């Protein structure tokens, strides 16, 4: 039988994504293509691998990359160590009535990022940890402080959804409190951990304001380098480094998706 659709049904639901599609092409896809173009051309617009060779033969650039990955990993780990127990604690309805406490923990995000980092620098200097004597520590503290809310929120959402009966089942089957934690609570919170890592690791890799401000320029992260290259009109080198960043983020996205997907279905909690 022929279905008699009214005229306006010609407007299909998928048309609704046209505005975003345009945005995607204009501000994400085309810029990426431009980056790729600049990364593999020379000043005359001819294909070239000068930037690639230049990057891998310049020890200081590779070194900055390694440092950045290292700092990002450390920040993520520290954030998890602080944020995980905190989120678990906050997810207890008795402690966090009406979710007031969680709002307090997320409140720093409401303040301008540059301003906040400036304040952190002053505070740290007052405490004796300044860019002059401990640039690495100062940067790390700044990073953790800045990205902690991004760890707490997804973990908190996951913790709220913890299945109490699964935890009880584990205890019932003979798991002591420690075993209950790593055999039931931890696996259940994997989706939260994955999104927390994604939301911390990637931005820390590329951020440069924090390290710049807090280490007084002593620690250069990958983001700083890219910025510097563009500032010095070295568009091809800058673009190539941006591309490397893109690849690293792509790889980490791929890895976390794989993990999160296998561990729990529909696990994305943010």
């Amino acid at each position, binding site marked *: 039988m022929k279905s008699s659709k009214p005229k306006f049904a010609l407007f299909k639901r998928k048309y609704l994504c046209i505005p975003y599609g345009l945005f995607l092409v204009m501000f994400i896809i085309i810029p990426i293509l431009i980056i790729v173009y600049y990364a593999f051309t020379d000043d005359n617009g001819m294909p070239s691998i000068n930037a690639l060779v230049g990057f891998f033969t310049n020890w200081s650039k590779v070194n900055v990359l390694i440092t950045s990955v290292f700092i990002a990993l450390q920040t993520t780990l520290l954030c998890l160590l602080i944020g995980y127990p905190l989120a678990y604690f906050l997810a207890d309805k008795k402690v966090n009535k009406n979710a007031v406490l969680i709002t307090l923990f997320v409140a720093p995000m409401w303040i301008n990022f540059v301003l906040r980092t400036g304040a952190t620098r002053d505070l740290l200097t007052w405490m004796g940890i300044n860019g002059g004597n401990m640039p690495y520590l100062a940067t790390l503290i700044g990073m953790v402080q800045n990205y902690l809310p991004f760890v707490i929120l997804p973990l908190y959402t996951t913790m709220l959804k913890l299945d109490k*009966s*699964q935890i009880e089942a584990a205890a*019932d089957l*003979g798991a002591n409190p420690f075993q209950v934690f790593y055999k*039931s609570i931890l696996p259940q919170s994997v989706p939260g951990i994955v999104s927390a890592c994604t939301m911390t690791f990637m931005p820390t890799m590329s951020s440069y304001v924090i390290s710049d401000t807090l280490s007084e320029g002593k620690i250069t992260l990958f983001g700083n380098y890219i910025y510097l290259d563009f500032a010095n009109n070295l568009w091809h080198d800058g673009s190539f480094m941006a591309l490397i960043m893109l690849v690293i983020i792509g790889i980490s996205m791929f890895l976390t998706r794989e993990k999160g997907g296998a561990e*729990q279905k529909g696990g994305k909690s943010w």
Partner: protein
Amino acid sequence: MAKENCIISLQGVSKVFDGTTVVDNISLDITKGEFVTILGPSGCGKTTTLRMIAGFEMPTEGTILLNGEDITSIPPYKRPVNTVFQRYALFPYLDVYDNVAFGLKLKKIPQVVKDKNGNPVLDKDGKEKIKMVHLSKKEIDNKVMKALRTIDLEELADRDISTLSGGQQQRVAIARAIVNEPEILLLDEPLGALDLKMRKEMQLELKDMHKKLGITFIYVTHDQEEALTMSDTIVVMKSGEIQQIGTPLDIYNEPVNAFVADFIGESNIYNATMTGNKKVRFLNHVFDCVDDFPVNEKVDVVIRPEDVILTKVSEVKAENLTGKIVTKVFKGVHYEYLVMVGKAEVEVRDTKDREVGDLVKIDVEPMNIQIMKKELTRNIYPTAWINNKNQVILGEDGDPFECDVTQLLKGSSLDEEGFLISQDGKKYDLNDADVTAEIGLDAIEIIDGYDNGDTNGDIVNIVYKGDHYQVMVRTDDEEDFILDTLYTWNEGDQVSVKVAKENIKLTLKGEINKYEIK
């Protein structure tokens, strides 16, 4: 002392959550190898009782003995008890095999330490050295596969939990519990989420499994049919208290009170009076019965719908109990009729096809009339007291009711200051006097909403008595009002109750002299 062969024994166990008593001083002995069902409506404390046996909740009072040993404060992971949860609580991040193996992988068993030559190593006291070791992979594998065979799911061992149907998940949950060879298997409404057909199948399978495994099953459900089908013993609970313990047959045929009768199966419940030796009067008709109660005692009678015998008659005769069929529902094997006798309803199950409007004679075999002691003919409040405004407070706390205190002393009256003046002029101050208050079931008025009476509460229980309802209202202060009403209410309704001043009967505890003002 717990009786012999008793595997688990609850002794005076109570549980209070935030001031609300959920389980109220229950004592229960369960024999080894029994299939015990704890049956009751939601909120009766049955799940809490089970959780206390499992160790998830600590009793506020009382002790729990397992094989005679006190396990009241032992955490769940140290108890030889396993639970099948209401919503299965399977681990979604593990496959079927690993779910079942979960408990076995954690388990440690004592093993004698042996040296290279296979001789046992002795410790300094000359005893064999014993080490706790995990089960070997092979042992675990054998046990898991055996458990999966028991539930007929061995071919699904490496499947993801989320790909299983509800019934299959249920089986995995059972396998996960029985694989640990617990002494007691606790089942918390495990079939609640299954459809009717599946549920019936699983009931029989569970019963079968119980026979094969020979371990004690404690099963919690609100489904009376499930309880009757599977159990050796049924424990009926209501409002945190045990109403009756017995075999399914006992509970069905000889319920101890109207609540149990109403809860177990369809039943007609009526207020009745004993009119003679083994004669009982209800529905304005005298029936022969087999139970012996004192003459003139008010009782409840229960008649199962299938025990009512209908005979078509053409006219009403005085010696017969006659009624008129008002509704008819076909139920497959039988018809369900509603017969009106005056204002009272009689529910009947009959295989004969009759017509709505038929006049029928109603008979019941004497042995099918179950007579129960009336639980309550009046509300009695033994801990009531009088406040300084000459009002009565029924419990320790609670809202005051206006009452007539002059009934405490014959011929007395109140002066303008509120003191009680006796006939011969003596003066009494009744403030804080302890009394027993009694209120008749028909003297309490029930009104919708919280703010329309002397006090308020929620309806916790309703029993239909043929032509009226008996409703139980519980206040915040845990005061119960049982009352008769003609109107239909629902469990959980928020209501107010009102009692007229003259309907509260007071009896003073002790002599009135001690309240005299000299």
